């Protein structure tokens, strides 16, 4: 259900259903892609593959949760890819010095700190977050290289990679964490003060400010959350790979934005939800996995992703127009 609105002109159940669908069309899209790939590949609808999709999607998914918070605020965070690389490098690199869990904690902290820095810069300077975090995208990657000295860092003990190897049926721990976080943040959005403020700030920042919401502090919190979630993603990635690549997470920020927008959350803020983001993340994961199962060459995959994205936007546009009349 869309929790952000109640339609005043609500008529029959059919109409409510239709308007729900219009606001959540990503699920239709997801069902469609799933149907297509199930028909096209016998391996697609296997428990094992579904498990893979969920795990693979979870990484972008966790980034997307933070991005959704920031985007509903009407902002954007381009630095999540670099942030996750730093967190993963710290979580692995510090293990020999301070032990596994303290290292993981420091990794998380680094994400929170960078998110805090982004948020503070946005709030204090009044610069567009696109600019601030574009700077971060470049500079934080520099920090990663300074720390790793250009090398991929490896865990001292590969049992670290078995931490997320807990399964609930075919569903991995990573996927569970993703869904857990998504539900938690959906609850934040719909039921807590901070969540409602997020909509208020993104929707009409003047009104939110005039109503006494501390817009600056609010944005700093959301950027910090976004950075922390990027770090969570980085740490899970380090557990998956057993290695911290200095180039980890390159262009993931773009995939993340694509997933969130595909879901229906608006770039200009004020509208969106975690449900939509889950839909977008899964659609993206299904598309990438399905194309791989169909053995499509690399260039086809790139072209299909581009085309689908544009298609989704056009569809969204058409549906909105439909809704308007």
């Amino acid at each position: 259900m869309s929790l952000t609105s109640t339609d005043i002109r609500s008529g029959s159940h059919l109409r409510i259903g239709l308007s729900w669908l219009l606001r959540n069309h990503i699920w239709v899209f997801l069902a469609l892609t799933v149907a297509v790939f199930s028909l096209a590949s016998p391996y697609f609808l296997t428990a094992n593959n579904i498990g893979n999709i969920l795990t693979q999607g979870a990484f972008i998914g966790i980034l997307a949760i933070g991005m959704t918070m920031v985007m509903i605020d009407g902002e954007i965070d381009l630095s999540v890819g670099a942030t996750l690389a730093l967190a993963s490098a710290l979580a692995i690199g510090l293990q020999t010095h301070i032990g596994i869990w303290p290292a993981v904690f420091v990794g998380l902290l680094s994400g929170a700190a960078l998110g805090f820095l982004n948020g503070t810069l946005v709030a204090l300077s009044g610069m567009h977050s696109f600019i601030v975090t574009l700077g971060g995208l470049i500079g934080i990657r520099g920090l990663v290289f300074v720390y790793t000295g250009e090398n991929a860092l490896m865990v001292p003990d590969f049992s670290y990679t078995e931490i997320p190897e807990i399964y609930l049926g075919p569903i991995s721990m990573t996927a569970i964490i993703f869904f857990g976080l998504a539900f938690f943040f959906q609850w934040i959005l719909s039921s807590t003060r901070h969540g409602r403020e997020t909509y208020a700030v993104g929707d009409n920042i003047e009104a939110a400010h005039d109503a006494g919401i501390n817009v600056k502090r609010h944005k700093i919190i959301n950027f910090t959350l976004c950075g922390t979630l990027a770090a969570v993603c980085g740490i899970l990635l380090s557990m998956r790979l057993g290695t911290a690549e200095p180039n980890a997470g390159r262009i993931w920020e773009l995939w993340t934005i694509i997933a969130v927008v595909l879901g229906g959350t608006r770039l200009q803020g004020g509208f969106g939800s975690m449900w939509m983001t889950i839909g977008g993340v899964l659609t993206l994961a299904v598309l990438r996995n399905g194309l791989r199962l169909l053995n499509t060459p690399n260039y086809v995959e790139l072209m299909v992703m581009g085309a689908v994205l544009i298609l989704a936007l056009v569809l969204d546009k058409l549906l909105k127009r439909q809704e308007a009349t």
Partner: protein
Amino acid sequence: MSQAILKVEGITKTFPGVKALDNVSFDIRPGEVHALVGENGAGKSTLMKTLAGLHRCDGGEIFYQGAPLSLSGPLDARRKGILLIHQELSLSPELSVAENIYLGAWQTNRFGMLKKRELRRNATTALEALGCGFGPDVRLGTLSVAMQQMVEIARAEAFSANVVIFDEPTASLTDSEKDQLFQTIRGLKARGVGIVYISHKMDEIFDITDRITVLRDGQVQGTVDTADTDLNQITRMMIGRTLDAYFVKAKAEFGDEVLRVEGLSKRGLFSDASFSVRQGEVLGLYGLVGAGRSELVETVFGVRRADAGRLFWKGREIDWPTPRQSIDMGMALVPESRKEQGLVLMMGGRENTSLPHLRRFSDLTVMNRAREMAVYEKYRSALSIKTTGPDQAVSQLSGGNQQKFVLAKWLCAEPGLIILDEPTRGIDVGSKSAIHELIADLAEQGLAVIVISSEMPEVLGVSHRVLAMSEGSIVAEFKGDAMTEEHLIDSVSHAREPVAAE
């Protein structure tokens, strides 16, 4: 009279380049409606924003309930009982009504969860106290402007405010909505609330207020009891002279027909609209907010597309034009919302003025600055617009001066037909009567003029002929002696039954 509830002493506020408030003192007593009037840019909104914790003043003191007041921010002001209802609505369209009423002040439990039930209940109480016809769960964006304003006013109930400030609340309300608002204000007043009322509409000022404070160039010109004063005195205090006439009607000498519209329809907005206007004629278009007048003229101008209908320009039938073609033909539309539709706020007055006529101000696409400056200067002085220079961003100007630039940009094309959508909304009396004179002038020069207004005296005062519009249909036409307030009200309030044209 009782002790002042809020007292301002000698406050000063400077913006870069402007002294918005200069040693201002005034007070508000419980149970009174205190009017604040003044020209555009006099500093009214600034003064009120200072009281509501949105601006910090540079000097001076504020006393609230006898003690010096220091505000940490707008929420603090609201919590202490000072509520500002903004000139531009200050709400969040995606949130529900209940959430908007308590915007930023939501109660939460120990776990940071919203007390949704309590929020709803309190909001319902506040809405019922005002007699609003909608519930707390409605998404705000689906409400009309008047309803949204009621949501803002509901905050006064919700926070049990002691001081409520209305900054031009009736700018986008119809007369009946205004009456409802006034009832609400009287209700607040009866409960001992001190009310500040800012408006450019003098009839309202004399209708509802007890005292009037006049502001001019950031300074207080004086405070008078409403009962002891009259329009002329207030006008003189505001603009330093008196006005002989508030409405001027152009001489009724009509030439050829300029525009004729037949059977114009657009699903969901208006249907079967037909009218025509001649050279030298001022055609009024009256209706309640939401009647579809703006949409109708926007369609004629070409910003929107019609579903059906025919359009005749100077007797010849033409295809539906684009705005560009309309402008080139000699049509001009002064849109109702200056900030969204009228101006490029970061451009200066010069560039805004020439924006619709780039071809006229350029030679082979190269802009001719001298020609641009000459025209800019002509209309700036003709409309006496206050700026620091041709390139000062119009966003820095007061609302009234902005509105004058919107007029300038259309007048400089010397069009054959000018459509004015709420041209005097938010404009002070002095400028307002200047605009009325201008309308008369234009008509006498042979232009056809269409004026949309929700102010009945205005529409009757300036027009030769009035169309009444209701729910997307033109329901009646009045001219001559039939142009009376009673007829107009009558026609638009019987929405579905067509009133015989006289």
